[in-house]
């Protein structure tokens, strides 16, 4: 058990709250950057995919986990990012242009959805974002001159300062660096007034207004940031795939993203990473299982959505706070052993919220 002596308020503003934090997160980042020295090409590829998922999940978490706006169409932003990046690279621009353009265009897409969507909530918002994703997928299929339509589109490798990134470990490091920056930006937002306003809008729109927060503005901001980050993830997804077809960005991908942040733990940055690792490992596991199991089982169509669905339902039933929530419980169990009490995490009775304003 650790007792923290705080001597000034500034300590509470630091991202790493104490020496232990600094050490473990520092070590984690070091290990991640050193991973290509240890892991072979196949595993680095898998790790890159997980990082890209984490980046996309980070974007969605800003919107859904922290602002409470459910999006069923985040694959659309991945698509916009992926195609924009690929197109600019195809025109001979470097990644210095292509990546920011991917974020920017995705952001504009985010704005387009946000302005009407900020007035909606719940199921209507989910449907609107879903519709947007379908439109984007459809566009990608028909804009032959830009996206190659349903025939698909080759993606050039990223270039930085005239250097072409061919190796998988180079791409891995590139994605990792951008992910670190994006994560820091999100953490900064969360410890600022904007982040608190997002949480306020999520938990009680009514009282957020009474405290001077403009929910409309906050939602639009969250949509834009979310779209930009997810767009960047899309740009990297394009490189990971190296060949784009509109079908990649279907409804299943959107659902998978949502699943990821719910599994990881809604409303936490940790949850993004737990979720990404889980989904990434599961996917690999399923594809290995498919190959090893007799084809009568392994060859069944729809086995992935089935496994994901089962896991989602079990998490919602047994651990609504996600993997991160479970981890906190395990960690405090160890810290407080032998005086840990199960009750520490029992919620108090929640109070009736039906007559909201009366």
């Amino acid at each position, binding site marked *: 058990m650790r007792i923290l002596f705080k001597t000034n*308020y*500034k300590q*509470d*503003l630091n991202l790493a709250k104490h020496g232990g934090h600094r050490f473990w997160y520092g070590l984690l980042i070091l290990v991640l950057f050193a991973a290509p020295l240890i892991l072979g090409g196949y595993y680095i590829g898998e790790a890159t995919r997980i990082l890209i998922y984490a980046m996309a999940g980070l974007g969605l978490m800003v919107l859904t986990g922290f602002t409470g706006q459910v999006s069923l169409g985040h694959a659309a932003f991945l698509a916009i990012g992926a195609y924009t990046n690929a197109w600019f690279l195809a025109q001979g621009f470097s990644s210095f242009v292509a990546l920011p353009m991917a974020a920017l265009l995705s952001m504009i897409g985010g704005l387009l959805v946000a302005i009407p969507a900020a007035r909606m909530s719940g199921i209507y918002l989910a449907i609107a974002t879903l519709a947007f994703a379908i439109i984007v997928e459809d566009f990608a299929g028909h804009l032959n001159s830009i996206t190659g339509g349903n025939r698909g589109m080759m993606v050039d490798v990223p270039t930085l300062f005239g250097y072409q990134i061919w190796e998988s470990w180079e791409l891995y490091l590139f994605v990792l660096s951008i992910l670190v920056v994006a994560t820091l*930006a999100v953490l*900064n*937002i969360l*410890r*600022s*007034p*904007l*982040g*608190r*306003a997002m*949480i*306020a809008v*999520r*938990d*009680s729109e*009514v*009282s*957020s*207004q*009474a*405290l*001077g*927060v*403009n*929910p409309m503005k906050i939602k639009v*901001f969250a949509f834009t940031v979310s779209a930009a980050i997810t767009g960047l993830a899309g740009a990297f997804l394009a490189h990971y795939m190296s060949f784009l077809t509109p079908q990649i960005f279907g409804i299943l991908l959107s659902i998978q993203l949502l699943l990821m942040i719910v599994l990881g733990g809604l*409303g936490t940055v940790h949850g993004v990473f737990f979720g990404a690792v889980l989904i990434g490992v599961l996917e690999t596991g399923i594809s290995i299982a498919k190959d090893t199991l007799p084809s009568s089982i392994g060859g069944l169509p729809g086995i992935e959505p089935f496994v994901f669905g089962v896991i989602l339902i079990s998490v919602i039933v047994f651990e609504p706070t996600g993997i991160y929530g479970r981890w906190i419980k395990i960690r405090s169990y160890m810290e407080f052993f032998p005086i840990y009490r199960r009750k520490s995490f*029992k*919620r*108090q009775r*929640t*109070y*009736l*919220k039906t*007559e*909201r*304003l*009366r």
Partner: protein
Amino acid sequence: MNLLEIENLSISFGGVKAVDDVSFVVEEGSVYAIIGPNGAGKSTIFNLLSRFYEPLSGQLNFAGNDLLELRAKDIARLGIARTFQNLELFEHASVLQNLLVGRHVHNSQSWWRQVLFTSSVIEAELEHRRKVEEVIDFLELAHYRNQMISGLPYGVRKKIELARALCIEPKLLLLDEPSSGLNPEETEEMGFWIEDIRRDLNMTVVLIEHDMSLVAEVSDRVLAIVDGKVVTEGDHTFVQSHPEVVSAYLGDVQ
């Protein structure tokens, strides 16, 4: 001087007049109580002041501002803070975070500075934190500072909602049934705080309250409404002895 002036305020919900031609003024620095049986329209008056509802008719004036020209999100910036009858805290955030949202109206940092968490943001955050800590000291909430709202008992939540409103540093504080759900000791404590808020923090207070001893203890003037209409107004002994108030309350008890 009048801080708040309400004139001929009316609203109806599906044909039922919830607030019917209500007028009253609140003097700066006073504690003003609104009483009335369940469903009288008391909370609706607060929700009209917060601009959650559009009135059918009437005027709302606060310190020279026409509230009807503003939207809900602009009210706090003028210096009006409130609590809610059924508590509207940010459940999945810590007490500290809840209180810091109360500082939102005092934030002037641009979004990109916040994304970069520049030194000016840090300065501003430290200043907000100092202000919040003053409120935490004032209401003795230090013990709960880093706890999640979702794990706290009702009485504490009630105090936190009051604290969050105080963090706005408002001129006018609207309290919707501050004592409901509290035990007698907590109610007494609430009474002391309301007096301190008026005296030490120089705020004007309007409270909706069912507990008559609390009303008697803290309020300068009392407004009684029944079925959306003003029955009487005056000091608490006068209002409490008014025959219509007596019958409305006895009727309520039956």
